[in-house]
């Protein structure tokens, strides 16, 4: 388990990164925290010609809060995001999700952008970002663009980011107006710290009368990409969220998913457990919003 040879470039600027990627013809790859890339290099599942290190680019690290969004730069460590009071108060769902990511040793090195770039269908940060209507900003030599999470995940470990693009940041919109927000993140894995077998992220907004003005439920690990349960969300909006209401919409979860089979769980398991976790996440998020 020793990596194949590659060139290493310690990038000093974003311009340099996009230039190298542009010339790399798909054979250049960005390393940030390395927590998913390093095993792939060691197992020679990834054999890039060039590895571009973005750890020293100051503008790719840090958390910014504006009036309408929280911006987490790509190279921000998961541990930093988890410990950030801004994240805990403004993006509680993300904080809940990150607490399930790996262990302190991997969170100290692993980055928020790295997790979104790797895009494992069962990983937590992409799921939370999807539930929160986040988008990523991408940059290539041709320019910058934004991609909404809804359009970002294309398949297992496949995203809308082109080989010549670098992920700069992820933008989380902040709820606007007089709303009460409740969030919940539930996952099941055999051991704590493992990738989820199935996970559910719920983000619920109630207006001042307790009526659901916006609901988001995302399921991970039960399809080739993390998925929003849009039909269910539509049915939740416009009413108070009660246990009966949740029960009434839950069947939509199983209908929306096409899970796979592997040694850790059957497709049937994933479908059933997605429903179970969806119920728990919705119930908990609704209760939190109602507090």
């Amino acid at each position: 388990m020793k990596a194949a040879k590659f060139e290493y470039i310690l990038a000093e600027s974003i311009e340099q990164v996009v230039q190298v990627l542009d010339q790399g013809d798909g054979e250049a790859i960005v390393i940030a925290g390395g927590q998913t890339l390093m095993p792939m290099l060691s197992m020679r599942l990834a054999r890039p010609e060039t590895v571009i290190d973005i750890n020293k680019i100051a503008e790719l690290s840090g958390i910014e809060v504006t009036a309408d969004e929280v911006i987490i730069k790509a190279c921000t460590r998961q541990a930093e995001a988890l410990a950030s009071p801004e994240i805990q108060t403004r993006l509680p769902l993300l904080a809940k999700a990150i607490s399930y990511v790996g262990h302190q040793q991997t969170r100290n090195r692993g980055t928020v952008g790295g997790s979104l770039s790797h895009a494992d269908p069962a990983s937590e940060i992409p799921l939370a970002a999807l539930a929160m209507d986040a988008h990523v900003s991408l940059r290539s030599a041709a320019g910058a663009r934004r991609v909404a999470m809804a359009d970002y995940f294309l398949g297992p470990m496949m995203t809308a980011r082109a080989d010549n693009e670098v992920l700069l940041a992820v933008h989380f919109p902040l709820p606007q107006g007089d709303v009460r927000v409740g969030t919940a993140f539930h996952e099941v894995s055999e051991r704590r710290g493992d990738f989820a077998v199935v996970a559910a992220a719920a983000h619920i907004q109630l207006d001042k009368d307790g009526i659901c003005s916006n609901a988001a439920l995302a399921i991970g690990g039960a399809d080739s990409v993390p998925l929003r349960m849009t039909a269910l969300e539509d049915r939740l909006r416009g009413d108070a969220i009660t246990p009966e209401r949740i029960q009434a919409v839950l069947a939509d979860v199983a209908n929306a998913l096409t899970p796979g089979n592997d040694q850790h769980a059957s497709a049937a398991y994933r479908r059933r457990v997605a429903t179970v976790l969806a119920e728990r996440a919705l119930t908990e998020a609704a209760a939190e919003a109602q507090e």
Partner: protein
Amino acid sequence: MNMERNLHYVATKRRVREDKRFVTGQGKYVQDVNLPDTKHAAVLPSPYPRARILSIETAAAEALDGVQMVLTGAQLAEDCNPIRLGLKLPEINWYPLAVGMTCYVGEWVAIVVADNAYIAEDALDLIEVDYEPLQPIVDPEQAFDETELLVHPGHGSNVLYHGNFLWGDVDSDFAGADDNLSFRARWGRSSTVPIETFGALARWDEGTEILDIWASIQMPNFVELMASTLGYPLNCIRLHQDVDVGGSYGVKRGIKQSVLVGYLSRKLRVPVRFIEDRLANMAGSDAHGPDRIFDTEVAFNKDGVIKSIKIRALDDAGAYPGRAPFQLAKPISAIVGPYKINSVKYEAISVCTNKSGQVPVRGFGQAPTNYMIEMAVDNVARHLGLDRLEIRRRNLIQPDEFPYQIPPGSKYDSGNYPVVLQKGLDLAGYDELLARRDKARAEGRLAGIGIATVLEPGGGNNIFEYLMDPSAEITTFMEGCEVRVDAQGNITGIMGTTTSGQGHETMMATILGEELQIDPDEIRIVHSDSLNALPTRSPIASRMAIMLGSAAAGAAGKIKDRAMAIAAHNLDRPVAELEYSGGTISDRNDPGHKLTWAEVCFIAYRAYHKLPDGMEPGFQAQYVFQVPGGGQLPDENNRVQVYPCFSFQAHVPYVEIDPGTGRVSVLDYAIAHDCGTVINPDIVRGMVIGGLAHGIGAALYEKFAYDDEGQFLSATFADYLMPSVHEIPDVKDVEHCTPSPLTSHGQKGSGEGGYLGAPAAIASAVNDALHPLGLHISELPMRMHKIEALINDGNT
């Protein structure tokens, strides 16, 4: 043997001497041995479970800068013999590299030697193998029946061993019993999976014609197997046993790895080292454990008294059996567990399949057997509506019945099973635990308490081989200890084997200190190399406290005898009138008339004229301890004493199951443990709890999984799930001491115990939790998706 005597060091909490080097980063593992000019090896795995190797193209790899050699199985087989298997299976040729055929995914097809491991792996990329894939045999029951699809066609079938044993009148016990039941239980393919993989470093010395080897090894016969495979005389190989082994629990038996580096080192005339990486280890190390299907029938009376048991065990040994079939034979030591069962029928079958090979795992087949026995007892209780404790109380061997001979002939040395069980229940707070369970159930949760009362046979004894192969007339299973006293009077104890976390150095120093009345911290303990070593059978079989401990006591006794003889001669008193105290020997009637330890040592080394007539100069002693109860061949009814000492434990875990996800949480765990005299309490406690955690892994998480096509699915630690600290509950433990009459200080084995009971106990708890739903699971590991399917889908 003197149980009453006042012990100074044995059974006293003292630091474990090995620990200091480990906490400072000074442990010396095989990876840490650095020899000049060492070259590094890497192996090429087969991607197919079964394929003909049509050709291997190595020229490009050999041409790479920094590559010394590429070796294939065909080349190797010209120069070496197949590795000797446990059973005589002459048509199954196990070579370190595949020859002509690959028999499982991950089997090593070629090995590269290069300047470093990175270059070696670069070279692997350049080797081209042309395979003709063939249909594999994956399912063990299919393998048993199969006549066409054979893993080793020359062998004529996939059956490695098929034997029937009958001890007592099973038919009449079944006919006379009130009732009977049958069930199937399945033990999954897991293993011990130490955090250190296997590694070996070899250096051929042309000047001395000795092959030096450093290896992460824990096995008897290692050097013999290397010698027979390489075709060398036994005394041509020198195994350095002062290497710290990073965990083993049975599996560190890297014979093929060691043969490879030995062969390559002699070929290349440089030191060659091969440290398995995790992928090579999981898929290709032939280090998987038992994978067993039990079909069991039990006959019992209405009062719960179990009369007889019929067991059929079908075990999947993988492609190369090694000593795997014997893991069906050793449990004959305790085939009825701690229960008075009058007769036993045992059908043992070992088959090969296209999977990585099976290696001895902690307990050598006892953990699966105990799991099955405990399930039998629980099932009878459930069938009769009896409490699981009550049925155990009615069947347990009672303390006044020892030594107790079981139907296959072994006599259990000592024990007090009801008292230890009660201690376990008291520790668990059993009544409160019942209330907690019932409250959880009332609140709609699935909660269960597990009960397991199991034995840990300790001490070893190869005689089980004879039960499978009567040409294996091996009736000794010994361990040697040497003690040297130098001219200054310092004491050095020498063991002839390695240590892999069990604290043998501490154990040996404690016993030598106890016997010689000297602070163990002042005693040096070393590991001799294999050319210097007294006979040893290595740290298997929960045997080192029993065997090395008793050998150390024996050697210390000889040292004392010699000192007394020197003193008697010089003090002009008979030995009987002398007293030994902390090395000083004095006249009982005149304490001032004495010889100090320094004076004894001076006489031994310098003053030949003061030695008794005929005594050799110098001051050393050797003692080789034969296994108690060994030395016998089985009688005509296959009855024989297998292992000598029997430790006992009662496990009481508490679990809850999330009915929505099937996830099991082990929330509490109490264990009462009796291994006779505990030599070092911290060591014993650590191994008990550690074994228990290992057992929780086997019960709930760990499996080497293959798909129906023979593809291997568990090559990484992300797929083979060993428990982390979060999956292990806070364990409460208590010791009880029923000394063994067979050992120096009453000690028994303790290295396997937790593992031999935890899987049974967790299964008992899970089934207790599922009981209100009328459900039952009898397959390990009890992964959450299986339990969830049972609850919510009506099938597994």
